[in-house]
Structure formats: structure tokens, C-alpha cells
């Protein structure tokens, strides 16, 4: 398959606010269940092990006309909950059997209650991850929490989830993560070959496709892109940070690259690489999933950082590992976790003399001119002053 074919497919999936592919998956066999989850993270392994399709609900994107969603949210709340409610009210999520609302922020937390009130017939669960990282305390709590999740899924699907089912799913996702990481690594090495808009679309496809299919897709993409003739441009390299929950419009990603910045690392859709290592398939699988989160998960703003010294260092590491020359903070407007975290991250970058800029977006931002302007000036100054 050519790059174009793969990306076209991804684009179709991305733009489809009716989730046709997931509906088709569900209809292919009677009794199949689909479980939606909001950002940032839920362990998809568990949903997969219950024989269900986990799909990421990442808002309505830039083209969804939000009519009813606004009726439920004040103007100073970010956009993702309103477009998600819009999807719900307009029956675009009517095929979803269960919804998980992870521990991300007050908005998503309260959205779990909104869902219970508005769609009482759908299983809606708030999903808590521990903020205490001791295995005997947070680990224990999380393991029990996961068990409760399994029980509710078992009830929903009328199935039993065995340890072997879990181990099998862990393997599937280990493989998927391996390829996600390869794609990210490839872009760090040759950003001119892999426009970030493509990488983004490729990752978004993983939010609605079964993991096995997505893994194959990434393999195909990497094979195809290697043969693609793409010229290196006089761009600088940046890490993008802050878009972990509400997703920016594709136009913003394109605009940043158009204005002279290669995005070489980002925190879009983190669920697919939240766990940074392979999860072990030996021993108690639930314990392994729980412990992986405690010890080997990526930092993100909703997670408390127990150590003062460590706070924010990860970002400087990303910059170093990707050979970037600066950081662009792009947070959703009104996103408390991202915006409250930013000053702390600024301090780390200041210490390490890494340049950065910051701006905000909404998933439906239309005017890209100010974004091009800022990203462009940033690229200009890196270019002109490192050349001088």
C-alpha cells in the first residue's frame, strides 16, 4: 500500500464522526460490544480481553457543529466535553455499550456524571488511576479498581475474563506499542519524510481500529514512507506539548510545520504509549498492568509528581532524545491541567536554556494565522540566530 492510500484511509476514519468502522466491527458478529473511553488513559488490554473493541472518544473535531453541547457547558470550559455531549445527543454514539471516563481532570470527572444522567441506559464509569505510587498502597488500590472494572465489563458482555485472555491481550498491545514507538522514532530520525499531520492521522486510526489491524497499518506505513521521495526543508525541530486531551485541529499541526517547524515529538493521544515498557505476561496479569502504570508510565499533568527534583525533567529529556531545538506549548483553551502545569515546565526549560513558546487552541479553531505567526517567528529566530 502506498503512503497516500494508508493516509487516505486514516483520514476517512478521522473525519467520520459517526464511527462507521466501529459500527461495522460491532455488526460483524452478534453480541459484540464496543467501549468508548475519553482521554487520557485507560488500560485497553482489559477491554480487549473481554472481547470488546475499545475506542477513543476524542471530541468532535473541527467540523462538528455543536448545538446542544453548548447548552450544557459554560463558555469558560474547554471544548471536548461539549462536543462529546453533542455526539451523544445526536445519536452518534448510540452503538456504544459502555463509556469510561478516566481520571484526567474535573471536567472529565464530572462528565461521567453528566453521562449517567443523560444516557442512563449506557454503562458509564469513572475510572480512577492511583496518585500514590507505592505498590502496597496505590498498587493494591489500583488492582482492586481494575478488578471492579473487569467485573462490570463481564456483566456488560455476559462473559468471563480469564487470566489467559488478559495475557493474550497484553501481548497484542505490547506489539502495538512497539510499532507506535517505532513510528515516533522514525519521525525523530527523518521528520521530513513523515509530516506530523500523517503521523497524527495514523495514530488517530488506532483509536478506532482493532489493535491488530492498527499494528499492521503502522508496519505498512513505515515500509511505504521509506520509499517516498520527500525533500528536507530548512525547518527547525520542536517538541509539542500540552495537547494530551482535547485534540488540536489538523490544520494547526499542518500550520506549525508550514511555518517552518518540524514536530519531532508530541503528546497527542497518549493512551497508545502511556506504558513505556512491555508489560510482562508472566504471573498475575492484573498486577502487571497495575504495576506498569506505577513504575513505567509517561508523566502527564493530571498525575502528581511525588518528587520535586524530578518535576518536568521528562520534557527536557524528550527534547534531547529527539534532537529538538525548542518546545511549543499548545494547550487547549481552559485546560486546567495543562495550563497549571506549564509554568512548572517553563522553569525546567529556562534552567536548561531550551527556548519555548506557548499558545492555545480549541478543537475547532478556525483562524490559523496567529498560530503560523507565532510558530513562524519561533522558527525564524532559531534559524536566523543559530545561523548567525
Amino acid at each position: 500500500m502506498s503512503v497516500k492510500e494508508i493516509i487516505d484511509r486514516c483520514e476517512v476514519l478521522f473525519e467520520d464522526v459517526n464511527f462507521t468502522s466501529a459500527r461495522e466491527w460491532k455488526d460483524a458478529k452478534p453480541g459484540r460490544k464496543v467501549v468508548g473511553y475519553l482521554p487520557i488513559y485507560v488500560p485497553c488490554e482489559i477491554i480487549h480481553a473481554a472481547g470488546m473493541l475499545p475506542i477513543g472518544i476524542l471530541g468532535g473535531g473541527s467540523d462538528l457543529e455543536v448545538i446542544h453541547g453548548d447548552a450544557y457547558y459554560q463558555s469558560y470550559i474547554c471544548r471536548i466535553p461539549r462536543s462529546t455531549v453533542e455526539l451523544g445527543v445526536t445519536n452518534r454514539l448510540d452503538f456504544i455499550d459502555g463509556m469510561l471516563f478516566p481520571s484526567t481532570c474535573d471536567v472529565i470527572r464530572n462528565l461521567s456524571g453528566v453521562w449517567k444522567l443523560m444516557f442512563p441506559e449506557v454503562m458509564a464509569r469513572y475510572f480512577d488511576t492511583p496518585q500514590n505510587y507505592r505498590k502496597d498502597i496505590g498498587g493494591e488500590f489500583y488492582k482492586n479498581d481494575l478488578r471492579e472494572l473487569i467485573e462490570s465489563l463481564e456483566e456488560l458482555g455476559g462473559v468471563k475474563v480469564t487470566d489467559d485472555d488478559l495475557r493474550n491481550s497484553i501481548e497484542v498491545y505490547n506489539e502495538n506499542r512497539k510499532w507506535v514507538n517505532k513510528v515516533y522514532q522514525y519521525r525523530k530520525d527523518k521528520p521530513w519524510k513523515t509530516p506530523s499531520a500523517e503521523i497524527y492521522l495514523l495514530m488517530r486510526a488506532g483509536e478506532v481500529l482493532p489493535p491488530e489491524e492498527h499494528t499492521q497499518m503502522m508496519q505498512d506505513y513505515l515500509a511505504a514512507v521509506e520509499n517516498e521521495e520527500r525533500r528536507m526543508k530548512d525547518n527547525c525541530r520542536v517538541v509539542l506539548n500540552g495537547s494530551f486531551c482535547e485534540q488540536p485541529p489538523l490544520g494547526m499541526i499542518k500550520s506549525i510545520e508550514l511555518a517552518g517547524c518540524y514536530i519531532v515529538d508530541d503528546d497527542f493521544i497518549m493512551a497508545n504509549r502511556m506504558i513505556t515498557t512491555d508489560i510482562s505476561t508472566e504471573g498475575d496479569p492484573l498486577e502487571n498492568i497495575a504495576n506498569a502504570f506505577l513504575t513505567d508510565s509517561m508523566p502527564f499533568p493530571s498525575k502528581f509528581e511525588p518528587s520535586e527534583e524530578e518535576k518536568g525533567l521528562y520534557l527536557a529529556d524528550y527534547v534531547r532524545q529527539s534532537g529538538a531545538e525548542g518546545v511549543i506549548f499548545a494547550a487547549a483553551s481552559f485546560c486546567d491541567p495543562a495550563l497549571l502545569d506549564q509554568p512548572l515546565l517553563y522553569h525546567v526549560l529556562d534552567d536548561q536554556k531550551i527556548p519555548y513558546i506557548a499558545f492555545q487552541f480549541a478543537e475547532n479553531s478556525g483562524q490559523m494565522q496567529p498560530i503560523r505567526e507565532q510558530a513562524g517567528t519561533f522558527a525564524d529566530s532559531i534559524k536566523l540566530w543559530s545561523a548567525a
Partner: protein
Amino acid sequence: MVKTVGIDVGTGVVKVALFEVEGDKNEWIGKRVERIRKRDPYKLAEDTMDDLLKENGLTRDDIAYIATTGEGESLEFHTGHFYSMTTHARGAIYLNPESRSVLDVGALHGRAIRIDEHGKVLDYRMTSQCASGSGQFLENIARYLGITLEEIGELSQQSDDPEVVSGICAVLAETDVINMVSRSISAPNILKGIHISMSNRLLKLLRATKVMEGDVMVTGGLALDTGLVATMAEGVADPKNKVNVTIKSDPDSIYAGAIGAALWGGFRYEKLQELGQLQEAS
């Protein structure tokens, strides 16, 4: 010496500057400004440049580097594009080497930029969408008051009891102003009130860039509005504001972007010649 052109395509006005550049030396040899007035800005930019070249007995082939800025990214005939803040910073240094920050106030946006002595952008802030403090707004109000743009500055300085406009939104502010007219508030007091509110907003942006000292160069179309410049000067003089800066403006401030583009064009031209890359970049 090579010749370079800087074209600044704005939302209200197109500005073109023609330079001769070599290393650190440069000479400004031509300029032209044209209000867009509902014409196609790209076509207008092209025509304005060609006119300017003709006036100087030149053709496009005589130009080493045509640099665009502002909204000129998609002009096909350019050699390269620099973004507004980069060019305004450079233009400000050209107009006044003591500039350590720039307030660029144009038709729709306001920007505060902190720069170093070489014109490098160190920090910046832009007005958000809600911007009653823009040239466009002032133009509408002037129109309503029956005043020409050139009169604004002078009138504002005659104010004895400025009436402050509230609100963030230009639409609502316009209603405010209309209401003031009906309460017989004089035009100078209305204009000064608008200047005060714009100035507060702009100085707030400026402070947010952590500029502490040095000259603030006002660029963009509103640098010509002496009332606004004077009001800002009063603002920084107010000890409450705790900034130790001096507001400066220049009759050529409206060209800052075009100047910066032309100069950066010259710089980049030499760089690229060294690297033998000019072909690729254009």
C-alpha cells in the same frame, strides 16, 4: 551592494520598502504604502512593488531577495518569507538602535515584543480575539464621529476629561461610544478615553513580556496616531505601572515590517550564497 525588497501585507495596508544591503551596511532607497480598501491585497502588493521598482528604474530581476512578511506567505514571487514579529523587531532596531521592545499596533492586532540589541525576539504577547483596541475599531469610531484618521491624534490631546470606554468587545464599545455622543461628551474626550483603554491593554501586554527598560518602539499604522503614543507615554510615566521604559515612535514606523523584511532578506541572501543554496530556498 545588492538590492532587496520587503513587502508587508497587512489586513488594512500594504507596505513596501526597497533597500541596498551589504554586510552591516544598508541604505533605504524607496518606500510605498497603499491602503487596501477592499481590493485584492495580493494583487495590490504585487502592483505596489512593481510601481516602486519602476519609479526607481528597476525591474524584479534587479532584486536579490524579495522578502514578504505579514500575510504575504502565499505570494508566489517572493524569495522567502519572515514572520511579522521577526521583521518588526528588525525594523524597530533599524529605526532606533536603542529599541529593546516593540509595540506593533495594526488594524486588527496588537503585539508586544521584547527584543535584544540585534533585534532577536526574546518574548512576545499578542492580543487575543477580543480586541477593541485596534486600528479598525478606531477607524469606525472616527467615521462615526465625523473625524478623519489624521485628526484623531491632535483631538485626543485636547481632551480635558476623558470618558473611559468599558468592555472588551469592540461591538459593545461602539454602543458605549454612541451613547456618549448622545450624552454630549466631546469628541476629544471620547477619543482620549479610547486611547486610554487601548494604551492600558497594550502596556499590559508589554509588561507581560517582562520588558523592564530601554526604548519601546511603536510600529504599525497606529504609531502615526500621536494621541495614542502620547497616552502610552503618560502610561509608562505613571509610577503605578512600574516600568522604566521610554515610548518612541517614528514617522516611518508604519514601514517597520517591510524594513525588517528587506534587511533580513539581505542577510539571508548572503548566508545562502555562502551555502550555495539560493536555488533551493526560492
